[in-house]
């Protein structure tokens, strides 16, 4: 009840020690965060455009190339706490600038790489760490500059991810066409240095005034027990006495008492579980569309529509959640958006045809953007801007942990994603190219994690079982798409042409009669050797998988919603 509320760590001004400016230079900081967050999320995804060429150059398999991306993502997540510690000590600006420099240097070093191991270390480890140094501080500094308009600022900053992805995808293709992969990595190293510009914008807040008199109790809340070094620094250089002791030292670096915070635990658990099914529909959208009979270009268009709506939905959600009706109830709004996500997917199989898929893509883009925009806002709201840096660092490393130990089921889901996008350099196809190829390469790995608008599908056991079923129908599924069908024909040994021919002869009369009723269609059929019946199995299995995804997501969202309600009221 109400008693609990009073001792909850407050999100108010009191814990910060000052009133955030909520404007002015804050908008420049939002732009800086926009760039940093955008690079952090979009950069690993956009690198997948180079994978095919690098793979051919080093003569390695898909999964070995996918390791580059895995390592980059894993390091980006594992580096969260390190980043948080550094932000707690030094503030956002130096960390972001160092991060930007690290990624730049890493890419330049990678462009001279002679072995794939070289790439693992440069792009994977150093690059991932640099991106971690970009992500956390960018999120943290928004909490420092904004309070009243914080959801709006968060929404705008998170919009960086789809916008930069949209920009980087064609840019990377252009670089690849003109400079090859080595030159492209070299130039990308320079492009990524723009993170340093973003870091320069993140001016640390300095205040000289004492905490205002009309705030209750200064910063002595029982829950906020320890002195935060950054708060110390903020108050005009006056040093407060620091507590001695080992635990206090660790707590000085990163706030471990967060694990006692019930809301934070719910958030953590909910997050970890939600991401299992969160990104899956994006993975299956294009294959599902192709299975429905749309061509590759239209399927790519779907993903672009999704990305565009996402781009708009994020600031939109920020705006909406800033209103006075929603702001106080922002956790419910978040739960609602997760549930809305699930509901969207449930409706998807019911919508007919390509227009149905377009409608679905629009609504899903909206849902996705909503969740992503609110993801960190809710966290800030829960734990307060002061502890946010530690909170987000701990959250990312915990999300990373189970993934590193996860089962290699996701490798099987790559079967579903084996679409070889052609070399068209249109933007639509590039988004498709980027997302799906990244998914294709990375789902080969067992250790991927995905976050917010993440990159990868990790399928845990229940879904894995479905994927196993999928595997049995692998050849059936292959028979569905046109490309796959031709591949299947390749795989038939030469001698079996005889059997096929005899089958054809016996089928002649049947076909005559059947074709008599058929009208001449303008569309080309890929082959007249129909060994497998295309439609039956594919429909069922694809539908089954999609339904499972939606079921899973709704389940999780329901759990989320209930937990918040229970937490708030008891």
């Amino acid at each position, binding site marked *: 009840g109400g008693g609990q509320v009073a001792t909850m760590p407050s999100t108010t001004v009191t814990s910060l020690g000052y009133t955030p400016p909520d404007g002015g230079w804050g908008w420049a900081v939002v732009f800086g965060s926009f760039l940093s967050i955008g690079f952090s999320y979009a950069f690993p995804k956009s690198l997948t455009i180079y994978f095919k060429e690098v793979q051919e150059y080093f003569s390695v398999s898909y999964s070995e190339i996918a390791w580059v991306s895995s390592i980059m993502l894993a390091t980006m997540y594992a580096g969260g706490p390190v980043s948080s510690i550094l932000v707690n000590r030094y503030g956002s600006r130096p960390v972001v600038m160092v991060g930007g420099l690290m990624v730049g240097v890493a890419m330049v070093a990678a462009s001279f790489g002679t072995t794939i191991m070289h790439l693992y270390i440069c792009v994977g480890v150093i690059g991932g760490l640099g991106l971690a140094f970009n992500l956390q501080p960018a999120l943290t500094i928004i909490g420092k500059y904004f309070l009243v308009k914080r959801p709006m600022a968060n929404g705008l900053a998170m919009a960086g991810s789809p916008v930069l992805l949209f920009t980087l995808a064609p840019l990377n293709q252009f670089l690849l066409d003109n400079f*090859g992969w080595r*030159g492209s990595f*070299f130039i990308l190293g320079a492009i990524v240095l723009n993170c340093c510009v973003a870091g320069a914008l993140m001016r640390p*807040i300095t205040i000289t*005034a004492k905490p205002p008199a009309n705030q209750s109790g200064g910063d002595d809340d029982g829950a906020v027990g320890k002195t935060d070094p950054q708060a110390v620094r903020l108050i005009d250089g006056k040093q407060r006495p620091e507590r001695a002791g080992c635990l206090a030292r660790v707590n000085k670096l990163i706030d471990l008492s967060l694990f006692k915070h019930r809301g934070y635990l719910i958030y953590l658990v909910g997050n970890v579980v939600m991401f299992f099914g969160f990104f899956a529909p994006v993975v299956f959208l294009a294959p599902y569309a192709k299975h429905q009979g749309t061509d590759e270009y239209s399927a790519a268009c779907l993903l672009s529509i999704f990305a565009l709506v996402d781009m708009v939905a994020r600031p939109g959600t920020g705006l909406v959640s800033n209103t006075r009706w929603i702001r106080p109830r922002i956790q419910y709004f978040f739960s609602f958006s997760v549930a809305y996500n699930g509901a969207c997917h449930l409706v998807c199989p019911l919508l007919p045809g390509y227009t149905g898929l377009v409608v679905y893509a629009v609504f899903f883009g909206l849902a996705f953007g909503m969740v992503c925009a609110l993801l960190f806002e809710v966290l800030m709201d829960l734990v307060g801007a002061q502890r946010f840096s530690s909170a987000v660092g701990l959250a990312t490393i915990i999300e990373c942990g189970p993934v590193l130990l996860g089962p290699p089921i996701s490798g099987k889901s790559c079967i579903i994603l084996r679409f070889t996008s052609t070399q068209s350099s249109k933007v639509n196809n590039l988004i498709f190219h980027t997302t799906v190829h990244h998914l294709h390469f990375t789902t080969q790995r067992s250790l991927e994690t995905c976050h917010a608008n993440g990159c990868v599908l990790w399928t845990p056991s229940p879904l894995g079982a479905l994927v196993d079923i999928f595997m049995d129908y692998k050849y059936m599924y292959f028979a569905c798409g046109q490309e796959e069908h031709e591949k299947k024909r390749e795989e038939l040994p030469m001698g079996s042409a005889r059997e096929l021919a005899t089958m054809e002869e016996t089928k002649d009369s049947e076909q005559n009669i059947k074709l008599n009723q058929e009208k001449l269609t303008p569309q080309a059929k890929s082959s007249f050797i129909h060994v497998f019946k295309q439609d039956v199995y594919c429909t069922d299995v694809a539908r089954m998988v999609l339904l499972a995804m939606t079921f899973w997501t709704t389940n999780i969202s329901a759990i989320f919603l209930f937990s918040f309600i229970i937490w708030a009221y008891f």
Partner: protein
Amino acid sequence: SLHIIFINVQKIVCFDDYFTTSQHTGHVIVQELEILKPQKIELSCIISDIPNNPTHIIGYWKKNGNEIENSKQTVYKVDKQRFIFKRIFNIQVNDLGNYSCIFSYLDKQEQVTFLLKVPVMKDKRDKPIVSYVGDSVVLDCKIKRMPNTWQWYKSNGTEKVLINATADPMNYKILLEKNVTKLTVLNLTEEDAGKYICSAVFEIKSSESHVYLKVLSLIEPLKPFIGITIEVVILVTLILLYERYGRSRNDSSVDDSSGTDGRRTRQRNLVH
């Protein structure tokens, strides 16, 4: 109302040496046959459901648009519904091309075309592969049917020069697998740029595809790199200078907002 339905069936003489795909585009029917070896092929067209149900029709064959001599035939009905019109062709190297069976009834003419050719490499790469001086590069070609062997040529203007990997192992490596071939060019120089032709050799004929190679010097990517780095340095300097200038102008910084903000936020606190 449409009343003619065509069915193309090839009765094959040699089972292993051809593959077919068929397309129905509008009213024209085209069937592609990929021929690997010289052989005899029987092409047959089966027509049914002609209006007015004639007892016989007249048909003839065309090769590459020209009527084949003495190919005109009267075709009688096989059973109550169908006419079967067929002919055996002896396909050698020079016989690859377009064959059509044409027949007329009333004032109309209908035609089915068979395209006889070697397997083509469909996924041609239209963009050049880019590499750098001193680096190495891998060029590859894929084809659906397995050829007898592969050969690589470098094109110098109009002529083709065969690449012999065994004679020049320092510069070239050729990998031959069933349906794929890879040419590795080592120690690239600017002269190595140009058009490379891969040729899949079948018994009847070869099928070719080409790849363009561009060799750049190391300075090429350096220019945009330096440009962007300079831009970054300038922006960072400007931002930091602006900040210092702004700070030296007014020493005060974040000032207290009005109490209303605090009240509003405190209200929010209570709700939680």
